[in-house]
């Protein structure tokens, strides 16, 4: 992993706020979500389908690994030069008639956007699906200021009408099946009636009719951006439905919220990402709509064009050499679709706008590892590595998960300064909790186990001694030769699984008495066999008779 010093300012980075904090720890939230059998079936079906499509279209590209390498290298270059690139982007965007706003965190971004909308005199805006606006909880903030934001992406609309939360980066309503969607439309769209079927075509048509009027009558749109091209000041939105194109072209005012990590240096760099992104996300060779706009074009499209450059914890991620490649993420969601933990627990269990493996490393880094329950997220993985294999920009998610677990342990042991707490009341641990976090702590059961295991496992002699206790475990297992209950933390194992009765003797201790019995062993097995001397590539199938 690259540990290049990037000359980061030494001030403490500002952590992110908004929809980034889990309110409940992951194991508890996951347990609750897993009780929803319908949701699990929906997610299982959908992720397996997208997974298969992705694998097929990736397979057909002979240079897929080279593309991944290029995508990763370009992002590394961006992160190494981010301040300069951002200033260049601002200069070029401004020169083409746009206005650039800088937002340190969610609150600043929300305030800027609200003021821009209020200045137009409207109270209705349309929205393009955007992770950044979900991250800052824009819709709720606007509602508090009397502004209604209507989602125009079909899946986001389903989530919005269902008063629900997104559970997937690309497919926010992945946890709903078409029958559930029909029910939502029937109860929330006045223009529908019982004749509506649950056929995808009918559902899409109902949404289209519902939205068409909005597109034609609304004068302000809010979007995110997939990429910002530094050398030209161009913004890009990649989508499937065409609703984004409507939002980006029909209104008078266009406000785009873009995370500061979304830059690419040159227009040509898009070539790499526009191949990586659709194949990784929807399993398509190309996405149907790629919209690009560069400032204002007189007489064509929005004449009042803004971009809000959002930090909200990204600088904090950038400041950590071992974790910063999380900022390479292009939000394709391939890691979610292959993740067995996501498949079981669903997106809501992660408690953040960013679910799945990427969320498990991004959310706690953006908020700081000590924030609320986010410190449980790096443990929400079996470290199987499927996410790293599919990541189009080669983010080594398992390695960062392990790094964050280490950060968490160090923070709990008081080796790291605690992050500032979330400014809202509901999920902050309160004064007592905050004091508790700062005090030296009694070692946890895990601490004790790890320390003990470290002592034993760092010496063959101590291992041999400890293994002399194996017969005790055998006694514990009893006549059915299975241990089915253990106390404390180990109970997490025996809640779900038996442990077989341990052997009488460890291999090490057995070997001490039997190492020399090679001849007996070979004879008992039927005699020796001789494979001709290996020639690596040129192995042979010849055999000796037993």
């Amino acid at each position: 992993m690259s540990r290049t010093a990037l000359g980061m300012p030494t001030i403490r980075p500002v952590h992110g706020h908004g929809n980034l904090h889990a309110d409940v720890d992951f194991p508890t939230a996951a347990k609750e979500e897993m009780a929803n059998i319908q949701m699990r079936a929906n997610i299982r079906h959908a992720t397996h389908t997208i997974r298969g499509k992705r694998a097929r279209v990736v397979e057909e590209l002979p240079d897929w690994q080279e593309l991944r390498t290029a995508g990763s290298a370009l992002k590394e270059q961006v992160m190494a030069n981010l301040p300069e690139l951002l200033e260049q982007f601002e200069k070029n965007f401004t020169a083409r008639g746009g206005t650039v706003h800088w937002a340190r965190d969610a609150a600043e971004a929300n305030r800027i956007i609200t003021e821009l909308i209020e200045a137009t005199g409207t109270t209705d805006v349309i929205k393009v699906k955007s992770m950044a606006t979900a991250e800052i909880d824009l819709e709720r903030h606007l509602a508090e200021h009397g502004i209604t934001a209507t989602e125009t992406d079909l899946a986001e609309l389903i989530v919005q009408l269902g008063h629900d939360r997104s559970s997937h980066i690309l497919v926010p309503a992945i946890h709903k099946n078409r029958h559930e969607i029909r029910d939502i439309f029937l109860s929330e769209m006045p223009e529908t009636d019982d004749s509506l079927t649950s056929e995808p075509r009918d559902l899409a048509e109902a949404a289209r009719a519902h939205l068409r009027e909005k597109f034609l009558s609304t004068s302000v749109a809010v979007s995110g951006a997939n990429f910002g091209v530094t050398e030209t000041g161009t913004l890009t939105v990649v989508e499937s439905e065409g609703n984004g194109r409507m939002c980006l072209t029909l209104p008078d005012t266009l406000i785009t919220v873009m995370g500061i990590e979304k830059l690419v240096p040159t227009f040509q760099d898009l070539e790499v990402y526009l191949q990586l992104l659709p194949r990784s996300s929807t399993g398509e060779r190309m996405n149907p709509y790629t919209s690009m706009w560069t400032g204002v074009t007189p007489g064509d499209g929005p004449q009042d064009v803004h971009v809000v450059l959002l930090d909200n914890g990204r600088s904090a991620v950038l400041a950590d050499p071992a974790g910063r490649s999380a900022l390479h993420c292009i939000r394709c969601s391939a890691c979610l679709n292959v993740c067995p933990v996501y498949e079981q627990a669903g997106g809501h269990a992660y408690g953040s706008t960013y679910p799945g493996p990427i969320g498990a490393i991004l959310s706690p880094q953006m908020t700081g590892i000590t924030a609320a329950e986010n410190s449980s997220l790096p443990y929400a993985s079996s470290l199987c590595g499927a996410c790293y294999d599919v990541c189009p920009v080669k983010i080594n998610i398992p390695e960062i998960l392990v790094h964050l677990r280490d950060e968490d342990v160090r923070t709990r042991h008081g080796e790291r300064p605690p992050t500032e707490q979330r400014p809202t009341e509901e999920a902050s641990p309160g004064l007592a909790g905050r004091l508790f976090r700062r005090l030296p702590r009694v070692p946890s059961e895990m601490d004790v186990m790890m320390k003990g295991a470290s002592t034993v496992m760092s010496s063959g002699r101590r291992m041999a001694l400890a293994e002399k206790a194996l017969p005790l475990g055998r006694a514990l297992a009893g006549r059915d030769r299975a241990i089915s209950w253990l106390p404390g933390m180990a109970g997490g194992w025996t809640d779900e699984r038996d442990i077989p009765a341990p052997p009488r003797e460890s291999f090490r201790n057995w070997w001490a008495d039997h190492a020399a019995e090679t001849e007996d062993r070979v004879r008992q097995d039927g005699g020796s066999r001789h494979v001709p001397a290996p020639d690596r590539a040129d192995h042979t199938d010849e055999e000796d008779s037993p």
Partner: protein
Amino acid sequence: MRIALFATCIVDALYPRVALATVRILERLGHEVVFPSGQGCCSQMHVNSGYLDDALPVVRNHVRAFTAADYDVAVAPSGSCVASLGHQQPMVARAGGDEDLARMAESVAGNTYELSQLLVDVLGVTDAAGQLGSWFPHTVTYHPSCHGMRLLRLDDRQKDLVRSVGGLDYVELPDADECCGFGGTFSFKNSDVSAAMAEEKIENIVSTGAELCTGGDASCLLHLGGAMSRRGTEAATVHFAEILASTQQNPLEISGPVELSIPSPSSRRPCPPARPSTPSTPAPTTAPTADRGVL
């Protein structure tokens, strides 16, 4: 060749038969197996739980034990532990500020092979029946553990060896490349999700009709086997080293209560008749006499 066995902590303490199976396969081929007595653990449990400081002495011990010993190559019957040597030990050493240790760890890792890697890539074994005399007349499916698959890129080495065992009826596992849900301390820190993942894996195993699911990592097999035992599933798990070690003269017994101990020479039994391998007739659970060596 003089081959150093890195048993791994879980095999050493819980599955000595898997270590013995590894020894038997290699001795049968005429190699000398040594067991560096200072060995402990690869440190993966500590690293994956976030305890890098506590991992450091474990790494130091492993590197010391396998640097001091005299051997040509080292082998371990675990994809995960071998992957940890190369992917984690140098990182732990560097995090602890010990560059010399990191380089030594890289050197030890570079000469340590997972069992199927050693057999296929170094020793040229590709036909277990022909070259090892392996014989195991049972229906078997195979779960490729994640770290062997994704960190070591073992591809089909383990599976191909198992398929080439005499008398063995191989059945493919659906969604084989999905994690079984073990994940070290994940299995009890997130025990509900882990159990749900195991459940799915077990359903797939049962759907194959196999008597046994084999694999190359005792930890995953312990987790799956334990969950199967709790659910009363007929199938069980067994490490592929034990299948490769099994011969007509000294076959691996799979009926009777679970027994992880290394059998004493007197308890060896004659070769049992092959059991029918039709999926619809699972093995009797309360069978009789012999202790079975499966996990």
